[in-house]
């Protein structure tokens, strides 16, 4: 971003990334010209409702989408273009430069092999070397993610680990080759609340220790507030705002962001009804004309229903996709 003159170039720079799925009948664009960037060591939260395209955009970066997906635009990782990269080259990036952890820790480990086997294989996949070295590295990683008696646990099968422990193993596996970027796709959604905070804590600690950047895909603004530096809000396949996290919570620029913040349970007094944004996210094949949020926006003008809005850069290194952002003062109610 040009406004951050002092900041280093972003590690991951996504510009106008679009993802379309082609079925035998038609083509549906589920991610539309998404742009965001992450700098080394920084955490970006991507938030949005289900179906807003947050998972699809992050999987697109790693080329993990099925063949029916068409990806266009640009995503550069440390200067290397990821869009259209060959499978072979992409395999070198995955798990080595960029890793991903999924939201289902219970099913993400192969039940037929020991933890140690799978960790070592993730390591040797990119680094090669002797089995012994990989085993040592696996032990080290298990210790790092806070699994007691790592040496012994290496020989056990996934079924003897609980959900929280499995997510720790998945994190160890994702980080075993010291990637510079970790994509965490709702890593805590399937876990109960206390384990959730332990995992978040762990990720924060590991980030400080290893200096990697994290993209945190989530629908939980509480998680965003506690771990992220930047936040990108997605709505109906578009980024509608990217802001530093403090600015976002204090002074959201987009009516949708404000609506999300207003929907948090903390924003109403005890006993009061929770507030919400009326309506639902339009499906990608029936998007409204003009601004995609206009049917649900209480500030919508005539013009909002006719003219599509672009993502604009505003001061403070923020981006917003709303034509009224200058004249609206949306205050977070918290």
């Amino acid at each position, binding site marked *: 971003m040009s406004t951050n003159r002092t900041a280093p170039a972003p590690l991951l720079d996504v510009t106008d990334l679009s993802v379309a799925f082609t079925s035998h009948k038609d083509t549906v664009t589920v991610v539309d010209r998404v742009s965001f960037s992450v700098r080394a060591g920084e955490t970006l939260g991507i938030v949005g409702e289900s179906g807003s395209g947050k998972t699809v955009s992050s999987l697109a970066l*790693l080329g*993990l989408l099925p063949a029916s997906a068409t990806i266009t635009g640009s995503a550069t990782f440390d200067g290397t273009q990821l869009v259209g990269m060959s499978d072979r080259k*992409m*395999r*070198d*990036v*995955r*798990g*080595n430069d960029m*890793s*991903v952890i*999924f939201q*289902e*820790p*219970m*099913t*993400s*480990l*192969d*039940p*037929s*092999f020991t933890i140690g086997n799978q960790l070592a*294989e*993730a390591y040797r*996949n*990119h680094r090669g070397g002797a089995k012994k070295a990989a085993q040592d590295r696996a032990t080290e990683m298990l210790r790092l993610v*806070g*699994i*007691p008696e790592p040496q012994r*646990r290496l020989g056990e*099968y*996934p*079924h*003897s*680990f*609980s*959900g*929280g*422990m499995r997510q720790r193993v*998945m994190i160890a*596996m*994702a980080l075993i*080759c010291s990637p510079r970027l970790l994509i965490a796709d709702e890593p805590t959604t*399937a*876990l*109960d*609340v*206390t*384990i959730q*905070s*332990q995992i978040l804590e762990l990720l924060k600690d590991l980030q400080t220790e290893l200096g990697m950047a994290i993209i945190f895909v989530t629908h939980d603004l509480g998680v965003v507030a506690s771990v992220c530096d930047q936040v990108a809000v997605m709505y109906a396949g578009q980024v509608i705002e990217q802001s530093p996290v403090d600015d976002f919570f204090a002074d959201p620029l987009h009516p949708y962001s404000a609506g999300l913040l207003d929907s948090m349970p903390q924003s109403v007094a005890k006993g009061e009804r929770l507030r919400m944004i009326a309506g639902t996210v339009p499906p990608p094949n029936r998007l409204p004309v003009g601004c995609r949020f206009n049917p649900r926006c209480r500030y919508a003008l005539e013009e909002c229903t006719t003219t599509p809005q672009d993502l604009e850069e505003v001061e403070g290194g923020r981006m917003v996709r709303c034509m009224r952002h200058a004249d609206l003062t949306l205050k977070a109610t918290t």
Partner: protein
Amino acid sequence: MTDWDSRNRDVDPFLTSGDNRPLDSTLEIERTTEGFWTPSALPSHDTVPAHVGFWKRFRRNKVAMVAAIYLVVLIVVALLAKHIGLQDPNLQNLTEINHKPSGAHWLGQDDLGRDVFARVIYGARVSLEASFLAVALALIIAVPLGLLAGFSGGWIDQTLMRVSDAFQVIPALVLALVISGILGPSTTNVAIALAIVFAPGFVRLVRGQVIGVREETYVEASRSIGAKPLFIIRKRVLHNVASPLIVQAAVTAGFALLAEASLSFLGLGVQAPDASWGTMLTRAFSQVYDAGWLLWIPGGAIAITVLAFNLIGDGLRDALGTETRGA
């Protein structure tokens, strides 16, 4: 295993810090099992790998164990047939035709005065060889094709499935008869014919399993750390489809034995004077009025051995079943 699993579900004994539930409060644990509070992290997928404790579970199944021991003994005896002092199975003694079992000839002598016991053992060799060879060949053909069909989907899958349909609409034995008729009579050709007959079933089985496993998160997770496709197929997929395949192979071996006997009975297998259980049955059949008891020997051997294969298949299924175990 069972007890441990159910405890593990409720309390994670390896939590390092900030455990939400007091470990000593059994009341709290009680409540969770009654559904007052259900943590979303309940293991839905604590599948115990099939090979862990396999032998212990298989051994517990007495019937399957007996069947397995019988088969092992039969195989060993058949392999060592030349070295265990059996009489020459092809040595004729026309002065002692259709003699009933005696001390010198444990199972009697056939219509050419040959020792039936020696012929049964040498015949076991032929029959087992044909059936194992048939299953092995079928697996060699079918596993790669099943993996290919299941993994690639689309027209490749469609084509392979239609071809296997085409094979499967013809009754197995008729198809085997035609193929071995074309190839000419020999044990190897019978095995090849049977392999062609069995392969489509295996292709289907592997394909179905692969389609299930393909969508598992651990396959995607493996991709996400940059594993190569062949590595994923070999390690992530093949290992997780192996269990039903092993069971199917055991049961099919029994059927192959039976089919080999049928084809030999019709004269398509091993050629005279060598024995197989099927050819022995043909010889005995021709003597049915003079020495009807001769039928019982190869017939019984076939029946018992096929039964053994099926019982072993059942035992394997119970011991390898990953779905219902521990419940």
